[in-house]
C-alpha cells in the first residue's frame, strides 16, 4: 500500500477508477472489433494465398469454390500449366446439409485433403496444430478439428467424433486462427469421398454408371504458384489453357470478399469510433475534472512561488502516472470481463473478444496521451487565473 501511494498521487483514486472505466469501454469495444477484423483478414489471407479451382458448372460442393466435379485428369492438366507449383485435390462439404449454406460465414465444413501433396496455400503452408498431431498420409478415419468445432462439442485429441454418420478418431485440434478453419473438420480425402458418396444418392448413380473413378471425386483444388509468378495472371492462364474449369482470380475474389464484408467493415469503424469517443471523453473528462478540483492547490502553490512551467511539469507528471494506472486498470477490467464472457460463449464454439497486443498497446498509449493532454489543457486554463482568484474559486 505504501508502495502504491508512491505511484498513485493521493486523492486520485476516483480519477484512476474513472479512467479505468473509460479505458475498459474502449478496450472491450476494440476487442470485439479486433475479433471481426481478424476473421475478415484471415479469409482475405486465405484466398490471396492460393488459386481455387473447380469443375465447370453449378456443382454440389461447398466452401471457397463452387463448381462441378474436378476430375483427376483436369488436376494433372492444371499441374502442367507453366508457373504452377502444386495442385492439391480437395473435397469440401457442409457438415449439416440442411443449414450450412444459409450461414456461409460460419458454416461448419468437412474438408478432405489430398495429403500426398503439400498444402499449396502460400499464407497457410501448414495449419497450426495446438494439441495432438496433424493428419498423416496413411491416416484413415482420422480427423483434425478446428478450435471452435472442437470447443462446441467439448472434444480433445484422442476423442472420437461422428461426421456424416461415420466415426472418426480425433488426432489433433487446430490452434485458434480466428477465421474459417476454426469451424473445419479436416480428414483424409479418401474418407471425405466416402462421406460424399454416402450422403449423395445421385452421385452414387452417376459414379456407378459412368466412367468416373474415385480420384475424380473432387469438389475443387487448391493451386499454388512458383516464386515470382503473378497469381492473377496465372489464374487466367489456367482458365485459358485448361477447358471446363471454374477458376477464381485471387485478386478478384479478395475484392469480392471485401465487398461482401463491407457492412462488417463499416460496423467495425463505427464500433472503433464509438469506443474512442466514449473512452476518450470519459478519460478526458475525468482527468480534467480532477485537475479543476485542485484549483485551490494551484493558487496556493503559485503563492508559494511555483512558476507556470513548474506547475505544468508537476501536473503532467501526475497526469501521466494517473493515466498509466487508470489505463492499466481499464485494460485489466476489460480483459477480465471479456475472458469471463468468452469462457461462457466458448462452450458454443464462439469467441467475442480478441485482446490483441496492438489493441492493448494502443489503449495504453491512447490513455497516456489523452490523459496528459487533458491534464495540460486544464492546467493552462487554471494558470490564466491569478493566484488569489484560483484560491477564491477553489475554496
Amino acid at each position: 500500500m505504501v508502495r502504491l501511494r508512491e505511484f498513485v498521487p493521493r486523492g486520485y483514486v476516483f480519477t484512476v477508477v474513472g479512467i479505468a472505466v473509460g479505458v475498459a469501454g474502449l478496450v472491450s469495444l476494440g476487442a470485439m472489433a479486433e475479433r471481426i477484423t481478424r476473421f475478415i483478414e484471415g479469409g482475405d489471407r486465405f484466398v490471396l494465398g492460393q488459386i481455387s479451382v473447380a469443375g465447370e458448372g453449378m456443382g454440389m460442393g461447398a466452401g471457397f469454390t463452387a463448381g462441378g466435379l474436378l476430375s483427376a485428369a483436369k488436376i494433372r492438366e492444371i499441374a502442367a500449366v507453366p508457373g504452377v507449383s502444386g495442385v492439391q485435390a480437395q473435397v469440401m462439404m457442409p457438415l449439416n446439409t440442411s443449414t450450412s449454406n444459409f450461414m456461409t460465414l460460419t458454416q461448419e465444413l468437412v474438408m478432405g485433403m489430398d495429403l500426398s501433396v503439400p498444402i499449396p496455400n502460400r499464407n497457410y503452408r501448414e495449419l497450426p496444430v495446438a494439441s495432438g498431431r496433424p493428419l498423416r498420409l496413411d491416416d484413415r478415419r482420422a480427423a483434425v478439428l478446428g478450435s471452435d468445432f472442437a470447443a462446441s462439442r467439448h472434444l480433445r485429441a484422442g476423442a472420437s467424433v461422428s461426421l456424416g454418420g461415420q466415426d472418426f478418431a480425433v488426432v489433433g485440434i487446430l490452434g485458434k486462427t480466428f477465421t474459417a478453419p476454426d469451424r473445419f473438420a479436416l480428414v483424409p480425402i479418401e474418407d471425405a469421398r466416402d462421406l460424399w458418396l454416402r450422403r449423395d444418392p445421385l452421385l452414387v448413380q452417376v459414379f456407378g454408371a459412368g466412367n468416373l473413378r474415385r480420384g475424380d471425386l473432387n469438389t475443387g483444388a487448391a493451386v499454388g504458384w512458383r516464386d515470382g509468378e503473378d497469381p492473377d495472371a496465372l489464374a487466367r492462364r489456367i482458365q485459358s489453357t485448361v477447358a471446363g474449369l471454374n477458376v477464381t482470380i485471387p485478386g478478384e475474389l479478395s475484392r469480392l470478399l471485401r465487398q461482401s464484408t463491407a457492412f462488417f467493415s463499416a460496423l467495425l469503424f463505427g464500433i472503433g469510433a464509438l469506443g474512442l469517443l466514449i473512452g476518450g471523453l470519459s478519460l478526458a473528462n475525468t482527468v480534467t475534472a480532477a485537475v479543476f478540483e485542485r484549483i485551490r492547490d494551484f493558487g496556493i502553490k503559485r503563492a508559494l512561488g511555483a512558476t507556470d512551467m513548474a506547475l505544468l511539469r508537476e501536473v503532467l507528471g501526475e497526469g501521466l502516472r494517473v493515466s498509466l494506472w487508470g489505463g492499466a486498470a481499464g485494460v485489466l477490467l476489460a480483459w477480465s470481463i471479456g475472458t469471463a464472457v468468452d469462457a461462457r460463449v466458448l462452450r458454443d464454439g464462439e469467441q467475442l473478444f480478441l485482446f490483441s497486443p496492438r489493441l492493448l498497446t494502443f489503449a495504453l498509449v491512447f490513455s497516456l496521451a489523452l490523459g496528459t493532454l487533458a491534464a495540460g489543457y486544464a492546467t493552462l486554463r487554471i494558470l490564466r487565473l491569478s493566484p488569489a482568484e484560483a484560491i477564491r474559486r477553489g475554496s
Partner: protein
Amino acid sequence: MLRATGLSKTHAGPHGAPVTVLHGVDLEVKGGEFVAVVGASGSGKSTLLNLLGLLEPASAGEVWLGEERVSHLGRRAQARVRGASIGYVFQSFLLLSGLTALDNVLLAARYVGRDRTLAQREALALLERMGVAHRKDHYPAQLSGGEQQRVAYCRAVLNRPTLVLADEPTGNLDDEHARVILAELRASTAERGAAVVLVTHRPEAQAGADRVLRLRDGRLV
C-alpha cells in the same frame, strides 16, 4: 522596504459596470515594522493584501519591494519574488490536504530551489518552536484549527521572507492559539527584521502594532 503608490483595483460588477474596490492607496512599511490594517467588511483590506503580495494584478499603481518595482515584473519573476521574499498567512490556513504537515511546510522551499535536507532541518525546528513537531506526519484533516494555523505560519516564514502578509490569521482560532500566532508574527519583525502587514479585527493585535491603518470604502483614512 515595502512601498505602494496609487494602488487601485477595479473589476466588472454583476451588470458589467466597473466596481472600484481600492482607490489609489499609498503605503510604506519599513523593515521590522508591524502594521495592522483594519476596516469594515468590504472595505478592501484583503484586496490590498493581495495586491501587495502579487496574488492578483493591480488595475493601477505600483508595488516596490526594496529597490525592485515588483508589480511590473513578468509572471516568472513575480513567482520568484512570491517564493523568496513574501510569506502569506491566511485565515483559512490553506494547507494542501494531500500533504503531511511537514510536507506542507517544505512546499515553500520546493519552488525556490532550496536544498531539501537543509530546508527540512529548518522546517522541523520551526514546527518544534510552534509546538507541533509531534504532528509533522499528520495530514491537515487530522489537525485542529490552531495546529493547522501554526503549520501554515511555519510554511510562511520558512524561506525567511522580508515581507509577511497575514489576512485575518486569527479569525478561526480561539484566544490561546490567536495569542501564539500574533506573538510569532511580532517576533518575526523583531528577530528577523521582516515587515509584517496584518489584516485583523482583534483589538489586541491592533494594540500590539507599530501602526494601525484604517480602510474605508477602498481608501486609507
